[in-house]
Each structure stands twice: as structure tokens, then as C-alpha cells.
């Protein structure tokens, strides 16, 4: 048994960490949060040149042709650095959907550009407040065009292409849904940037006014492909969350060592020490669940759906727990704009809902455990 990343994968992780420490300090995250640029273009280009974006894209489509385990360790470092770039939308979702269901022509056309970062992709599924379900997807597909709106769409303002969950047959059921690929740089598209809790990752409303679109995968297969894509993305995003949780824990620990009150380091008070210990417990459980997620993803295991839901719940809670208590350890300083604590707090709560909230994933987890149990 070897339930650990290999030496080469650890090296890749170190390499990604060094690269991001250099190119993506929190001042770079803050520049996107505070400024008018929607994402860090130089970093995005660099990640493409380094091969990080294309790590899990086959060589024949312009990627490095490594595997999911390599992408997991890169995701962890991106999460740790709060990288203000659209990796989750473009790589974890769009490239993955194209790999799984795209036609040969679609793969040839788009995967090399996604791997290099030349093209940014995003997934557009949300139309209403609440969970995305077949009954609230109404955006209409008809004769190769889309009409309707999606909001919010993560990275929707900067994406060049979108994969859109749309209804080709009237009704409320899943069989009427398909995935469509849309070039967002066409006249039938309107975009409005949205105010969000984490402006270091931008979001938009996209209106489709009879925009030209082409099918991805079979007609009527949209919901299944969408759910499967969410599972794979949950594991990759889970590693972002684990990276963020670890960093928030370290920030809290470091502050508790350096901040003195009542004549002693505040980390010597059990109230603070035990809070940090509990953060460590959450982060450790999430990491261990994440290792199983990575294993399931990399082997295409039958346990993938269960592993994805387990990791999603565990890593969402861990990042939220560590980010909020990091502010608590910092006291009043933690609530200032100048300290970085809120960057992690914002990101933890963005990622907590970006693929659907905890309540949805808890439901999926219980459904999947039941199905396995019954099998």
C-alpha cells in the first residue's frame, strides 16, 4: 500500500509552491481584489507556460499528459496562494467536460488553447437562487442557438467560451437538458459584471440573445455530464480548499506565536491553542478524505462519486472553519482591510458555494452511501 503522493508529485508541488510564492504573493491577490483588472493576466499566462494548466490534458491536445494526481497537487498550491485566476472554471470544469464528452474536433480546437491559457472557459449553469436542478434550468436551445440568461457565472466576464447547461426539450426533467459550447465573443452575448463576496474571482451575468451554440456530448445527456463534471471538479476544488485551510491555519498559528498579551504569547492560552488544534483536526480530516478523492479520481474508481461528495463536504467545512477562526485568533487586527485574513475568509466562502452549497453535497453524500450500501 502507498497512500501518498509520489516523490515526483511532491516535487511538482514544491515547484508550484515556489512559483506561486514568487508570482502570486497576497499583494497580487489584493491587486485584483482592489483594482479594476478582473484577474491576474501575467500569472495566468505564466501558469500556461509552466504547463500547470495543461498538467492533466493529454499531450496530443497540447497538455503535459501527466495525470489527476499532478493536477491535485497544483490545485492545492493555487488554493494556498488564493491565485486570482480562472483555473477552476477553465481547467477543472471546461477542459474536463471536453475531455469526457467533447467531439474530436472540439478537443482539437479547444484543449490546446485551454492548456496554454490562450482561451479561458467557464461553465454556465445557474439561473435561480437555490440549488441547480433540472426543474430550474430554462435557458432554451433551439436550432443551434441559445436564448436566456445565466447568473452568476464564475469568470463569466473574462471567459472566451462557455459550456452552457440548456434545455432543448420543453418541460422540467433531466432528459430535456444538454450541454452546449458557446463562443462568448459573438454579438448574441451580453455580460454584466456582478458585485460578489470575493472580488478576487470575478463573476458575471451572461445573457444569450440567440447566440450560436454547438452540442457537447449527446443531446439529452447534459444533466449526467454536468453532475459527473461537478464530481471531478469537487475533488480538484477540494484540493484548493485544503491548500487554503492549511495556509489559514498557519497564519493563525504564526500570529499566536508572535502576538503577546498579558505578558505571554497568546498561543500559550488554551482558549487559543485549542481553537488552533481544532482547526488542525478539520484540516487533517479534509486532507485524508482528499487523498482518497485523488486516488478515486486518478483511477476512475467506482467510489469516485462517494469520494467526491465526502471530500467536498469535508474540505468545504475545513476551509471555512480555518478561515473564520484565523480572523478570531487575530482579534481586531483580523478584521482590518490591511490584514490578509479576509482574503481567505472571502475565498473560503466563495468556494463553499461555487459548485453548489454544503446542503446539496450532504444530500449527494448520503444518497451515494445508501446506493453503495444497497448494492
Amino acid at each position, binding site marked *: *500500500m*502507498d*497512500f*501518498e*503522493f*509520489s516523490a515526483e508529485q511532491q516535487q511538482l508541488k514544491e515547484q508550484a509552491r515556489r512559483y506561486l510564492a514568487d508570482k502570486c504573493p497576497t499583494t497580487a491577490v489584493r491587486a485584483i481584489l482592489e483594482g479594476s483588472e478582473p484577474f491576474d493576466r501575467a500569472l495566468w499566462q505564466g501558469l500556461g507556460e509552466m504547463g500547470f494548466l495543461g498538467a492533466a490534458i493529454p499531450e496530443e491536445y497540447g497538455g503535459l499528459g501527466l495525470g489527476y*494526481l499532478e493536477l491535485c497537487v497544483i490545485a492545492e498550491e493555487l488554493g494556498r496562494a488564493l491565485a486570482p485566476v480562472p483555473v477552476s472554471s477553465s481547467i477543472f470544469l471546461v477542459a474536463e467536460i471536453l475531455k469526457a464528452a467533447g467531439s474530436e474536433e472540439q478537443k482539437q480546437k479547444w484543449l490546446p488553447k485551454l492548456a496554454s491559457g490562450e482561451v479561458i472557459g467557464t461553465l454556465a449553469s445557474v439561473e435561480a437562487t437555490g440549488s441547480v436542478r433540472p426543474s430550474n434550468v430554462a435557458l432554451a436551445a433551439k436550432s443551434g442557438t441559445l436564448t436566456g440568461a445565466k447568473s452568476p457565472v464564475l469568470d463569466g466576464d473574462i471567459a472566451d467560451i462557455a459550456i452552457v447547461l440548456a434545455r432543448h426539450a420543453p418541460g422540467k426533467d433531466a432528459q430535456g437538458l444538454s450541454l452546449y459550447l458557446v463562443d462568448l465573443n459573438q454579438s448574441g452575448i451580453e455580460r454584466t459584471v456582478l458585485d460578489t463576496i470575493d472580488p478576487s474571482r470575478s463573476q458575471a451575468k451572461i445573457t444569450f440573445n440567440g447566440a450560436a451554440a454547438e452540442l457537447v456530448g449527446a443531446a439529452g445527456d447534459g444533466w449526467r455530464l454536468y453532475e459527473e463534471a461537478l464530481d471531478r471538479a469537487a475533488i480538484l476544488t477540494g484540493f484548493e480548499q485544503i491548500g487554503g485551510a492549511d495556509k489559514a*491555519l498557519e497564519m493563525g*498559528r504564526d500570529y*499566536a*506565536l508572535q502576538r503577546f498579551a498579558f505578558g*505571554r*504569547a497568546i*498561543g*500559550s492560552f*488554551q482558549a*487559543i*491553542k*485549542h481553537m*488552533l*488544534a*481544532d482547526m*488542525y*483536526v478539520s484540516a*487533517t*480530516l*479534509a*486532507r*485524508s*478524505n482528499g*487523498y*482518497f478523492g*485523488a*486516488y478515486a479520481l*486518478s*483511477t476512475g474508481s467506482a467510489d469516485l462519486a462517494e469520494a467526491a461528495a*465526502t471530500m467536498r*463536504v*469535508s474540505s468545504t*467545512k475545513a476551509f471555512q472553519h480555518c478561515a473564520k477562526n484565523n480572523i478570531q485568533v487575530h482579534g481586531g487586527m483580523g478584521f482590518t482591510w490591511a490584514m490578509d485574513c479576509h482574503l481567505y475568509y472571502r475565498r473560503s466562502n466563495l468556494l463553499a458555494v461555487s459548485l453548489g452549497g*454544503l*446542503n446539496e*453535497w*450532504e*444530500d449527494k*453524500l*448520503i444518497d451515494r*452511501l*445508501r446506493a453503495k*450500501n444497497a448494492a
Partner: protein
Amino acid sequence: MNFDDTPHEAAFRAEARAWIDANAPKHLLPHLEKAGFGGIELGGLDPMKEAKAWQKKKYDAGWACLHWPKEYGGRGASPIERVIWNQEEGPYAALSGSFIIGHGMCGPTVMDWGPEEAKRELLPRLAAGEDIWCQLFSEPAGGSDLAGLRTKAERDGDDWVINGQKIWTSGAHYSQWGILITRTDPDVPKHKGLTMFFLRMDTPGVRIVPIKQANGQSGFNEVYFDNVRLPDTQRLGGVGEGWKVSLTTLMNERLSIGSGMSAGFPDIFEFCKELELADGTLAINDRGVRSKLAEWACRQSGLKYTGMRAISALSRGENPGPENSIGKLVAGSSLQEIAMFALDLQGQAGAVSDPKLAAMAAKFQAQLLRSPATRVEGGTDEILRNIIGERVLGLPDDMRADKGIAFNKIPTA
């Protein structure tokens, strides 16, 4: 990332599995699979007798105390082989509860610090299950603050004379031997004046009084020492080195991995699949119930895979990282929360603890009453958080009012 055995591990597993298949007490299996909190019930058979018989059989075939050297009754197996054995032994390991303290803690301590003659005589008997050992550490004045213990050992010629009291000693009432930590010098700071011994539990002057626990059972004891006389040859380690010796014991306690505590999720999951709520829906279909179940499921799997990470480290010949220290902390509170939640779902019937009447043979009622001890024994939740905070995260020690002060000058009340 791969869960498969190496060829060597696979061969070892096959050998272990074949031996277990041919030799295990299969007639006890239905009872062992139901074993829950508060000991085992073997349909009228004597659990101690059955436990000793299984242990002896393993010992005779070279499957006892796998990680011990052969000359002391073990197999000289690698840590990963021990883990594989534990996985294969499965439910039969429930028979061995009375041996855990001896095999996991007392034996390794004697092995590191005891005189050679005693090691050769006593350790094989311990491995064979012929003797049971207990650990005489905690005292009324020394629990979490173990080094605050007061049981005295005073030198008298070639002997030591012991006076004092121990408490929370698991299994003292059925043990033949014990390891004992005492204070030999009260004039130095508390960690420096301690010395360890081993002794027979029927040594004159030793009196064992079972403690009736809050759940009505009696697994723990008080042990009184009234002028108990021990020869110096029963000393473990040097005079004044008792703290260092005791750390061997405690370290082995923490390293006894592979057993992997359950956070209790499978039971509550099963229960919620069957139980109807007031509105006629099954509990498992209720949003609020699902939220709680999901949390416990994540803790259960998180502990399982944390254990696997440790096993992998062993498999590579490395020491497991500190992540294994979270096990009991997570499991203890989960078991208690789950028990309370299960009773809540049972409504007024939740108060009934008769196994013939209560759901799942009153498993949750027993768990409710036993789980407070899980959060205390072998290191309280608070001590475990201190350990994580200080040894894993590197936070400063607590401020100690007794630091550097001679033991007999430390304020007590």
C-alpha cells in the same frame, strides 16, 4: 497512490489469512461481530477463558505480539505486517481487549528498561496470554498532571517500600503483573523525582478495589499500596528516571496504530435507514438528519484514511506523522454526539436501556453512558488538544505554576 499490497505484503497477508481461517474460533464469530460498548458477551461462555485460549493458540503458532523480537515471544515482524495481521484478524481481535495494555504498553516498557532475566521470563508469558498486565500510573492527585503523582517509594536496604494509591487502573482486578510509577525524591521538581517498577499484583500489601463507574460497570480500579516491599531488581530504568521511562509507555500508546477507532457512523446510518419520523418519512430522508450524518460520515472516513496515511508511512519505513494524534479526539466526541442524537430520534423510548426492548439492542444507550469515559481515558480531549497545539503546531507550553519548584513545595489547594 495505490491501495494494493506489495508482493511481499500480499504473501504475508495470504499466510495470515490461511492460518486464521484454519484456526480461529469461528463458533464465537456471531457474538464477536455484535461486540459493542462495555465488553463482549459470548452466549454464556467465559470471555477471559476464550480470550486466553485464542491468545495461546496464536502464540504457539508465532502469531502473537508480531512486532516483538522472537526471543521475547514475538515474531519480529515489521510494523506493516502487524497492521496487515490486525486487518486479517478482524472481529477476533475483540477477544483480546484484556491484553491490549500489556502487549501495547507494559511489554514494550519492560523490553526497553527491564533487566534481561525478567524480560526472558516474563515477556513470553505476557505474549502467550498466560499473564495479564496493568499500568499503575494515574492517581487521585495525578491524572492529566501525571507527574504530580504522590505514591512514595522509599529505599530500605536492597528493597523499596511503596505506600500510596493509584486510580483508574484498567483490569487491575484480573492482572497478574503491573508497571508502577512512584515518587522517590520529593525534594526535586516533580518530573525529576520519579522511578518506575514492575510487580506482581498479589504482592503483600497491594489491595485492589473496583470502581463502580458512572455507567454501572466496573472496568477500572483503585489500587492501594500499604508498605509493599519490592526488591531493587524490579526497578525499570534508573532511580529518578521514571518520567523518561513512562514516556516509552505513553509513546507506545500513541503508536499503537492500525486499530483505528471508529467514529460510530455505521451504526447511526443503519439506524436512520429504518426509523420513521413523525411526518412518516424515514429519518435518512430528512434534510436535518442528513446534515448530521454527512458530518459523521466525513469524520469516519477522515479517520480511516488518516490511519491509512500512517500505515503507508510505516510501509515506506518512515515514522507516521503527527496526524494520527487526532483519532481519539475525533472519535470520542462523535460517539457521544451520535448516541445523544440516536436517543433523540427514538423519542420517549430513547430512555429505555433494556437490550431486549430498545432499538439495536440498546447499543446507543450503552454508548451514551460509556462515551464520557472515551473523552477522558488515555488523555482527555483537553490534553490531546494541548498535545496537538504544542507538539504539532509548535505553540508555547502552558504557563506552569509548579515549574522548577521542588515537588514538596508545590501548592496543592
